């Protein structure tokens, strides 16, 4: 039986980054993907951050299927029938090279995978890896659902996504906790390009991102989002699974209500729904991160909880972890070293040196703060919307009185100590 230098399980951003980097360095790589084509099982918002990909494929802008580069970011806080928000739009975002793009993952991943094949890796689709093959404590290969389907390699890189079944089966980490994952559902709605551009006040190639919190999540910890693609809009909402479990809220009903919100409905009017998707996002942060390497194996991407929930970043962490895992293997190979746990610990060191760990450490307390303090998703959106309404209604009441009313409404809903405490908690968590 042929033995490869590396097996990569999964062809998402982390797996593709790993396989590409390994193959480019001349290693023999086989990558196993369970979808009909790479991307067919993958779901993301989706925003692509250029930096991580640029480090892998510098010329990606000339080839990759990108939808729109983002020139405007809106942050909305929604009450039942209103929102208050900020917009940031800058012409600086219109200067190449652009920093952020909307993408359609099924198309993007297919492109990325073609690059992987061209780099020399064997990409095998429509094949599910069912188990890791162990020799004692050491991973020596994978078992697939195909006849004669065992594959062997010096190292197995697990890029199998948030559910991370393989590592779980092998006992590398326990089942996910409902408090550490969010469930997001979304739809893609097609609109004529001109309609979309005039509706969002953008030119060809320019895009808008809207991030939303507030009543749209019905008191659950979560956010909504709306992204503009070339001739479609992606709209979705995600909340913590523990909240879904407790409220027994139906995710599609939540999405449907959000779409009907008076501030949102006009933006998506007339859109032709072409796909409905659901996906889990690992949001447990640093505290929920499992062991990410061992004898003959490494974990990259979502399967290692590499997501920055606060900044809505995931695919860039995925690509970076994939690349760093690959670089670890390449340097060990070059030095003639074995893929043992102590040797692979270089991967962790590389991560610690990168923005990946630095950011995860910075925000390690955020999930806890939000879990313990529902007011961020319930009371505050209502209060700030009411405050705006009060200030903007011209009704003969002087502004000073209005300010007092607003302050009172805040303290009525939440004690002064509570308000100060919340501010402190946020400051601590974000510090």
């Amino acid at each position: 039986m042929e033995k490869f230098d590396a097996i990569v399980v999964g062809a998402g951003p982390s797996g593709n980054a790993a396989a590409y980097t390994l193959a480019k360095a001349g290693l023999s790589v086989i990558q196993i993907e369970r979808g009909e084509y790479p991307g067919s099982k993958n779901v993301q918002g989706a925003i692509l951050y250029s930096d991580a990909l640029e480090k892998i494929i510098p010329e990606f802008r000339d080839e990759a299927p990108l939808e729109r580069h983002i020139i405007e970011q809106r942050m909305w806080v929604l009450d039942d029938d209103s929102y208050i928000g900020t917009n940031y739009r800058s012409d600086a975002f219109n200067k190449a090279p652009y920093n952020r793009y909307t993408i359609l993952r099924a198309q993007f991943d297919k492109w990325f995978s073609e690059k992987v094949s061209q780099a020399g890796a064997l990409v095998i689709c429509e094949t599910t890896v069912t188990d890791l093959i162990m020799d004692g404590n050491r991973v020596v290969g994978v078992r697939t659902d195909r006849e004669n389907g065992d594959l062997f390699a010096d190292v197995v890189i697990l890029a199998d996504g948030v559910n991370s079944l393989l590592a779980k089966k092998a006992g590398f980490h326990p089942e996910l906790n409902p408090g550490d994952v969010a469930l997001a559902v979304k739809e893609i709605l097609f609109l004529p390009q001109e309609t979309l551009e005039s509706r969002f006040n953008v030119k060809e190639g320019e895009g808008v991102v809207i991030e939303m919190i507030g009543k749209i999540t019905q008191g659950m910890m979560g956010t909504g989002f709306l992204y503009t693609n070339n001739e479609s809009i992606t709209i979705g909402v995600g909340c913590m699974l523990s909240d879904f479990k407790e409220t027994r809220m139906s995710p599609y009903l939540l999405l449907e209500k959000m779409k009907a919100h008076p501030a949102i409905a006009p933006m998506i009017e007339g859109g032709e729904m072409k796909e409905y998707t659901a996906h889990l996002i690992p949001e447990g942060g640093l505290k929920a991160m499992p062991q990410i390497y061992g004898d003959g194996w490494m974990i990259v991407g979502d399967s290692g909880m590499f997501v920055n929930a606060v900044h809505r970043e995931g695919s860039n962490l995925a690509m970076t972890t994939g690349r760093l895992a690959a670089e670890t293997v390449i340097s060990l190979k070059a030095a003639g070293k074995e893929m043992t746990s102590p040797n692979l610990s270089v991967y962790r060191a590389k991560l610690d040196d990168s923005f990946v760990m630095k950011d995860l450490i910075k925000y390690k307390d955020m999930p806890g703060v939000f879990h313990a303090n529902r007011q961020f998703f319930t009371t505050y959106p209502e209060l700030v919307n009411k405050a705006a309404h009060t200030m903007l209604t011209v009704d003969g009441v002087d502004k000073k009185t209005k300010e007092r009313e607003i302050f009172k409404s805040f303290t009525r809903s939440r004690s002064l100590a509570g308000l100060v405490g919340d501010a402190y908690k946020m400051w601590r968590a974000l510090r």
Partner: protein
Amino acid sequence: MNVNVEEKLFQNRYKVDHGRPHINIIDPVVCTSECKTQQCTSVCPANCYKAEGNGSISLITDGCLECGTCRIICDDFKNVAWEYPRGGYGILFKFG
């Protein structure tokens, strides 16, 4: 508000592996007699789990989006056996 999730799922592309559901309820009795909340029947984003009225739950995986929600929220009883479908089968996203 009444939402028909079947209409949403109809827009999706599936290759169903007939006769090989990739998710199974391990012990149906647990759902019927021990689980009081049956959150899978409302939280599954594809409505694969249905309360049958007599306390039991039926599971049809054809419309499954393979998210993993049902498995994780069944943490009290761990009564969901969840695997990926055979290679190439199941949901096939066109846009993702």
